[in-house]
């Protein structure tokens, strides 16, 4: 089973993007698509100093694993899926999430990677707070569809 080699992690440490790509690379892969989400220094015209991420760790890992399962159903050609999300305080330009998809050909890797980040923002229990020069605010997330 290919998915036994997938990687889903929540960490307080900086994310080792190249290390993740290396851990997931197999001989059968012809493409690696990596999404790297980084902290932006502004939101709606307001200057952001830093971000604070909070995670419901065990559930977040479960939900990331579920995204991996959904990807394998939709794109059986995918070789490996890796998702690492960081939590705690993050500075501008640091990576908050890295998603790596490997596949024999590029198209499925692009599509699966796009799906993974869109889905993560709906279902994975992680929250971020923006720290401004003059205050702080939780980011309003979107409500997921709860399956019956």
């Amino acid at each position, binding site marked *: 089973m290919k998915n036994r080699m997938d990687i889903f992690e929540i960490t307080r440490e900086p994310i080792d993007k190249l290390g993740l790509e290396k851990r997931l690379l197999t001989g059968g892969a012809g493409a690696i698509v990596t999404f790297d989400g980084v902290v932006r220094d502004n939101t709606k015209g307001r200057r952001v100093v830093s971000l604070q991420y909070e995670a419901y760790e065990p559930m977040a890992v479960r939900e990331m694993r579920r995204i991996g399962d959904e990807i394998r159903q939709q794109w059986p050609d995918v070789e490996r899926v890796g998702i690492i999300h960081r939590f705690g305080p993050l500075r501008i330009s640091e990576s908050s*999430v890295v998603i790596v998809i490997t596949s024999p050909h590029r198209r499925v890797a692009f599509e699966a990677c796009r799906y993974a980040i869109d889905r993560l923002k709906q*279902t994975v229990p992680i929250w971020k707070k923006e720290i401004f020069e003059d205050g702080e605010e939780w980011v309003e997330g979107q409500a997921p569809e709860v399956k019956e």
Partner: protein
Amino acid sequence: MSDNAIKVNVLLFGACREVAGASELQFNLTAPADVASAWAEIKNRFPNLEKFERSALFAVNEEHSRKDQPLKDGDTLAIFPPVSGG
């Protein structure tokens, strides 16, 4: 504890945690209990959580759950605002 009393572990995250000023606690509920009845009890204890009445999301034993999800003794109920990871 009477026969129809159950204990539920409650976890609060994000803005819900901050507003309540608590992240983890135990609640005694009367069976039959569900997420909705637990949520009502929790809002009684922390009236400030009322502002999340429309937006709050729930997970029972680490699975996204609706308000009509039944709760049994020993369950873990997590309460949080819509997620904003990424």
